[in-house]
């Protein structure tokens, strides 16, 4: 799933490892979510949103909204 995680992380000067530690997941998980290879569960998506103090939809791009834009 497309997302702004890399940008949000860069704005805070956090490495993937830093973010992984804050979320209590592996660096591999952060990388997989960031690159869109893995869609996080709802609880993990909420943890990410709470960490950045943003609504989920400002971090993750809804796949349906993305496809309707493409049309």
């Amino acid at each position, binding site marked *: 799933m497309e997302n702004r995680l890399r940008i949000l992380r860069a704005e805070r000067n956090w490495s993937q490892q830093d973010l992984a530690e804050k979320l209590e997941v*592996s660096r*591999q998980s952060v990388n997989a*979510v960031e690159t869109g*290879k893995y869609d996080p569960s709802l609880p993990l998506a909420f943890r990410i949103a709470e960490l950045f103090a943003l609504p989920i939809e400002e971090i993750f791009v809804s796949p349906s909204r993305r496809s309707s834009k493409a049309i």
Partner: protein
Amino acid sequence: MSLSPATKRYNLRMIWLWLLYAAFLLPAVYSFKHRLVSGEFAYVLAVLPAIPIIGVFATVGRYLVEESDEYLRMLMVRQTLWAGAIALSLATVWGFLESFDLVSHIASYYIAVVWFFGLAVGAIINRLTLGDGRPC
């Protein structure tokens, strides 16, 4: 790369189980080869090496329960699905070949060996498709 606590426990359990397997298998092979056992004790000695192998399956299940990192858990789930698919497919094909007398009989514990091989295949596929692999 730092390992998750669940992965560390998984690795440690695996080491102990494989050591236990060797400790049970070697005396069993020696005893049967030199005809040192008979009766009920022979059954016990023959089954002992299977126990750590069953422990390996349980350890994989335990890892899936204990791993709090959902992405790492998914990697292992994918590995076990590949392992199961490969082992069951080969067992089915071999079973038909054997029932039509086209191949010789092989001991059924080789299904477990193929399953372990399948775990490694699953790890390679994870590496190729997701760029991430976890130790088998």
